[in-house]
């Protein structure tokens, strides 16, 4: 808003779009490849990207196929195996009750199967994270592109709204809003359906999460809008919509993709933080964040219960972060990798 230098910096350190045209002409001597193909080739060569991408695909397939896996595995997500627990509610056997039937053991007290709860929990968490990232990125891109291109009063207003959204404490608001919204639509004794909890969570992420993308995109657009191709489009009488979404947007895909891929893990951990405060997805719906939080009191007595979900969510978020970084390197022609 006030310092051009500040705004140009991507909040997550994403590099500038660079100039795809230049790279392609450089390479044209050999083969004519589009910037997208180049980025893909670079990504293919990156071992970290391939491994983390593989992990992500595997986890997504697992999550999507949750009911199928449940059928093959022979255990439902809410099935309880009380007979396999001892008098204190701790799973019998070694390492949290791992057996051929229960690969990751059983939950203490309720005796549900940890593996299948994790698969279902991943489905909930990934869905929320992806949906939230999609919504926030869309809002952020539109707000940022409009603010950056139009400038003037529009820019001032949008930037100011961004500032306000940034100044609101997210957790306190979430804590206040989530239960009241549920109370408004469902009575105090009615059960709130899972899809409703999911929608509220996505909504609250959307209300607070779009600001960083908006800032990032705005900064990029400000540096792009003075370029010749924009001027050329304007001279040939292009309308505003054409300028924004046909001329500018294609030049912004790289930072947007990176921001998106780094936003997903943020929402996975964000959702976990919310369930830590008791406002995430409620029982009996399986949810990753809540699982971790519920397991922590058993750190000493049943470490396996903490270990399996903890390691998996760690691997998931780590894979997303690694992949996001690799994507950034691949999409940025200036990167020296």
């Amino acid at each position, binding site marked *: *808003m*006030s*310092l051009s*230098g*500040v705004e140009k*910096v991507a*909040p*997550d*350190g994403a*590099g500038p779009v660079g100039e795809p045209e230049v790279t392609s002409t450089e390479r044209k001597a050999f083969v004519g490849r589009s910037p997208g193909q180049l980025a893909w080739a670079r990504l293919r060569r990156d071992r970290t990207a391939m491994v983390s991408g593989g992990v992500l695909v595997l986890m997504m397939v697992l999550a999507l196929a949750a009911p199928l896996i449940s059928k093959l595995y022979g255990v439902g997500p809410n099935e309880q195996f009380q007979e396999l627990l001892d008098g204190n509610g701790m799973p019998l056997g070694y390492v949290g009750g791992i057996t051929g039937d229960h690969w990751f053991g059983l939950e203490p007290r309720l005796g549900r199967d940890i593996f299948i709860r994790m698969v279902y929990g991943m489905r909930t968490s990934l869905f929320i994270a992806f949906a939230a990232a999609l919504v926030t990125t869309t809002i952020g891109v539109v707000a940022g592109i409009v603010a950056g291109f139009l400038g003037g009063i529009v820019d001032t207003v949008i930037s*100011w709204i961004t*500032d*306000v959204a*940034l*100044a*609101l*404490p997210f*957790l*306190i*608001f979430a*804590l*206040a*809003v989530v239960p*009241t919204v549920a*109370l*408004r639509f469902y009575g105090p004794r009615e059960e709130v359906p899972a899809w409703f909890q999911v929608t509220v969570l996505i909504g609250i992420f959307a209300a607070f999460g779009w600001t960083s993308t908006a800032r990032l995109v705005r900064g990029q657009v400000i540096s792009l809008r003075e370029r010749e191709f924009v001027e050329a489009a304007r001279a040939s009488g292009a309308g505003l919509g054409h300028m924004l979404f046909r001329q500018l947007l294609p030049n912004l895909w790289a930072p947007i993709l990176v921001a998106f891929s780094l936003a997903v*893990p943020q929402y996975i*951990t964000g959702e*976990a*933080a919310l369930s*830590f*405060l008791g406002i995430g997805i409620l029982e009996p719906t399986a949810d990753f964040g809540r699982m*971790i*939080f519920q397991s*922590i009191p058993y*750190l*000493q007595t049943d470490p396996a219960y903490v270990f399996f979900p*903890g390691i998996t*969510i*760690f691997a998931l*978020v*780590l894979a997303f*972060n*690694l992949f996001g*970084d690799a994507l950034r390197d691949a999409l940025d022609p200036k990167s*020296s990798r």
Partner: protein
Amino acid sequence: MTRFLVRRLLTAVLTLFAVSVLSFLMFFGLPRDPVSGMCPKNCNAERLERVREELGLRDPLVEQYANYMKGIVVGRDLGSSQGGRCDAPCLGYSYVNSEAVTDTLTRVLPVTLSIVIPAAILWLVLGVGLGMVSALRRGTVLDRLAIGFSLTGASLQLYFVGAVLLLIFTYNLRITPVPGYTPLFEDPVKWASGLVLAWFSLAFLFSAIYARLSRAQMLETLSEDFVRTARAKGLAKRKVYGRHALRAAITPVVTIAGLDVGSALGGTVITETTFGIQGLGRTAVDAVRAGDLPTIMATVLISAVFIVVANIVVDILYATIDPRVRLR
């Protein structure tokens, strides 16, 4: 510079105004009866009515808001059950805590400050240091270790790290006492030992972001012409990296740091909950749970003030660090 400051302050005030209106509408305009949370025990209809009267909840929302703001600026008279005269900055009276909200804040604010400020110093030094080292020793084992460390931190949850640290250092090794807050000037050693786990878990998670960011920035700066020129004219490596390059590379780090510190000062909810320390964040959470409106309002406003002020400080620091930035 003066013009810039004035304009920046004006927008800041406008932002705070919007935040206060928004939170006022959200919390006071909520469908749930705000009074029910304010007299938790033995509430009869008559007492409820009196509370409602004293809080002025019957007045139109605009008037309530104006009264609240007036209290902050010049103070106002509250009912006798609310402690009577309340001097500026008056943030109201909490029935749940049975004290003026300002008193609650003066009690819990030092706690959050004691958590955040040392942790922020730790995470900045650690993060920027790691980022610098891995950028200068790019591709070596050291670089990989630093990246691994930072990616691990970025992929963990605070309550997870906190719980593990607590288990190891407090319950198994018994090196650190059970976390708690002792005022710094009463007993500095006890102050530090009660908070050290919170500092380190915060620093571990946060330094990750800084290490990645400052590594990327440093790499970009190192490839710039002025660095080569500085080296070519015979300047010592340490001077080039430590002074010229770092100065240019650190500016985005400052931006993020300002925002992070600002929002952390508004309450490190998760940290305070994990370690059972009653700071601003924990107070806000308790207030929301109890429906304690005056305290909620106050905590939201305070954290907004921190963020807005941090933003301004960042802008000024920016111009001081990077001579290329001109404030206008």
